[in-house]
């Protein structure tokens, strides 16, 4: 995805030469993506909307969603960028396998991820039982649990994106820095990082968006408690059961926030991509 950043393909203006065999499926695809969102707007309970949106539960869920998605993105950056560097710049046996494993959460159903997290980090889990015994830390049913569930699902997006950018970036700059006496870490910090910053930003946005919408792993691993682990997607799902109007209102908020953030970031960071 981010190899485009390096190659900068020339964009041709769509003219009369667009073949129908491409145009029709393209328009169908576009409609397929847009009609459900349009339906959400058409069926929205506009009249009761102000009342729905001023309820404290909505803001609590939104605050929690933003907090957890942002923390999960930060966590992904701290460990994901070095992981991407390791995959792109070093050669070690089994690197292909590690790379495949990193992308596994991309294809894994999130609920399966949640179950796996429970078995690993749950109070009775493989690692979790020691966390509980030694530090008294239990992660399920906590906000930290939400952050971990979201990180698990979102980090691969960041790693793949950053790794792609690193592969496309010219390693000779780093080599030049090394010949001038910079250590490998200094070269990474002073040369590589600024070079791939746009790719990191794009990956972070992807990861953040994925974390914001995360449902399956969250409800499985962290449960559902308003103000503690009930993020917007969980609130939408549960509201849909007995109050569809409230569910639509919540969905609109999530939609507006996602659009606003993606649009805002596009101008500031992603222009370079």
């Amino acid at each position: 995805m981010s190899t485009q950043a390096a190659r900068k393909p020339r964009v041709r203006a769509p003219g009369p030469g667009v073949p129908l065999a491409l145009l029709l499926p393209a328009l169908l695809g576009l409609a397929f993506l847009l009609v459900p969102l349009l339906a959400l707007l058409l069926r929205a309970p506009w009249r009761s909307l102000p009342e729905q949106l001023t309820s404290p539960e909505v803001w609590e869920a939104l605050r929690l969603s933003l907090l957890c998605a942002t923390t999960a993105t930060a966590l992904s950056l701290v460990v994901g960028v070095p992981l991407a560097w390791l995959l792109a710049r070093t050669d070690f046996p089994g690197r292909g396998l590690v790379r495949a494993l990193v992308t596994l959460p991309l294809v894994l159903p999130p609920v399966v991820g949640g179950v796996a997290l429970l078995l690993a980090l749950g109070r009775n889990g493989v690692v979790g039982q020691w966390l509980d015994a030694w530090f008294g830390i239990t992660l399920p049913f906590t906000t930290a649990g939400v952050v971990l569930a979201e990180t698990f699902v979102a980090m691969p997006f960041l790693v793949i994106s950053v790794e792609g950018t690193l592969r496309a970036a010219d390693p000779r700059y780093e080599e030049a820095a090394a010949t001038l006496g910079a250590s490998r870490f200094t070269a990474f910090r002073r040369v590589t990082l600024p070079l791939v910053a746009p790719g990191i930003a794009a990956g972070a946005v992807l990861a953040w968006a994925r974390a914001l919408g995360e449902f399956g792993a969250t409800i499985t691993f962290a449960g559902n408690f308003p103000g503690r682990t009930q993020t917007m997607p969980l609130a939408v799902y549960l509201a849909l059961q007995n109050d569809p109007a409230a569910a639509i209102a919540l969905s609109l908020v999530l939609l507006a926030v996602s659009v606003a953030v993606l649009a805002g970031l596009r101008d500031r960071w992603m222009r370079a991509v």
Partner: protein
Amino acid sequence: MTRSAQWTRRSHRIGALGAGAVLALGACSASGSDSVSGTGGEGVSGTVTVFAAASLKESFTELGERLEKEHPGTRVTFNFSGSDALAAGIANGAPADVFAAASTKTMKLVTDHGLTEGSPSTFARNRLEIATAPGNPHGIDSLRDLTAPGLKVVLCDTTVPCGAAARSALTAGGVELSPASYEQDVKSALTKVRLKEADAAVVYRTDVRAAGDKVEGVEFSESAEAVNDYPIARLDDAPNPEAAKAFVKLVTSPEGREVLGAAGFLAP
């Protein structure tokens, strides 16, 4: 939405597959000697789709197998989920023949839309129990014991019948409880206890029984204040009304009652 929609779609597809298989079978037998229709009682055949509360999983699966044995050529497919999710699915046009809910309130969501054939009948009742780890390591003896500090308790979400029932039992007992989580259906609440992530959950007694020796059930007096009625109804635009009728008849028959009773349900 995503989950129920997915399940609905899947059961729909399975239904279509089943119907195709049955058609093929029918063609085979018709080419044989006499027509078989009529031998199996009022022309019951084909696929019947039953939307049922998650707590009915074990007993309805058993009853479905019995119906299939009784009427060869019939296939019973189930969609087990939270009653409210199922009701929402049916109200939004999910193709089902029979709906069995864990509360009259969730059934009302469907009858209010005028989607049932006739009025629903109550076929079973269910009581709540506290599920704990085997051996009841925290010595939980009553609903009030759940408020002990440091104890992790999960309840069903109040939008789901088991959560609503738990809420009335807590109110009846005057117990203030802050759970670790409000789970989306009774089976996920129970799973948290089975995985030892929660110390206790308020679930149905039938779920405790279905879990076998993986959990231990604790009865509590306030559960008498929160007994759930289970209504069943045929749906108005059932694709297979004859088989739907046969399934409802089986569930409400003495035989059905016996199966439900063995699973821990109370007679209506």
